[in-house]
């Protein structure tokens, strides 16, 4: 019955994190010419791990486990990026890195959307019973 208890699985959280990361990367790209700006990023792997470990535990065989996929508040998800080469004005944005990460992130966002779409389609066909 897990498909009806939590029909979207982990992908809802993933979409939210991907969206947050887009804003962070867009901030970096927007501040490419701002002196003393330090590039930041979300550590996606550790954020995702923190999100998943926050589920409610069960103490009895007949308890229903609740996985709290919405709990995103954690300590220190935004981290500074280490630049490959220092620049004179103290700006650590490297436009090539940011561009490639932005593209990678948007591809993964689209992938998550595709997963969500098929989840929704799966639930719909289960409900219709066709």
């Amino acid at each position, binding site marked *: 019955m897990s498909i009806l208890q939590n029909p979207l699985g982990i992908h809802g959280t993933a979409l939210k994190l991907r969206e947050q990361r887009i804003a962070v990367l867009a901030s970096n790209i927007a501040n490419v010419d701002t002196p003393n*700006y330090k590039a930041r990023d979300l550590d996606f792997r550790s954020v995702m791990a923190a999100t998943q470990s926050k589920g409610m535990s069960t103490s009895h065989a007949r308890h229903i486990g609740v996985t709290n996929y919405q709990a995103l508040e954690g300590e220190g998800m935004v981290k500074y990026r280490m630049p490959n080469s220092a620049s004179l004005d103290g700006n650590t944005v490297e436009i090539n890195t940011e561009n490639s990460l932005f593209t990678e992130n948007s591809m993964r966002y689209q992938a998550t959307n595709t997963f969500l779409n098929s989840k929704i389609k799966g639930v719909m066909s289960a409900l219709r019973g066709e």
Partner: protein
Amino acid sequence: MSLLSALKISSSAMTAQMTRLNTTASNLANMDVVGSTPDGAYKAKRPIFKTVMETYTTDNFEASVKVNGIHVSDRPNAKSYDPSNPAANDDGFVFMSNVNSIEEMVDMTNASRSYQTQVEVMNATKKMMMSTLQLGK
């Protein structure tokens, strides 16, 4: 809705880069404005960019950019002897503007590239928003 703030951030950067392009255009246009005193000649201007923290917590970060003022170049204006110039002072000298055309061209290219990058970011964000809006259809 982080995608909407990503659009806002990109648009702030586009405005800032546009100001930079306009400043460069003004500098290039006024390159030959001379004066009879150093202050009478044109001085190169340059915008100062500043980060605006929209959201800055441990788990979320959004920063746009704004133009925080215009810096007037303090490079000395070159003096040239040209007594026939109507702007010449009593000694026959005119002061040239302190615009460096090579520097301005480099800045212009840089600004237009950054502007293009912002347009691409906006387009990509828009595509992502559209695909999320189409979910389940």
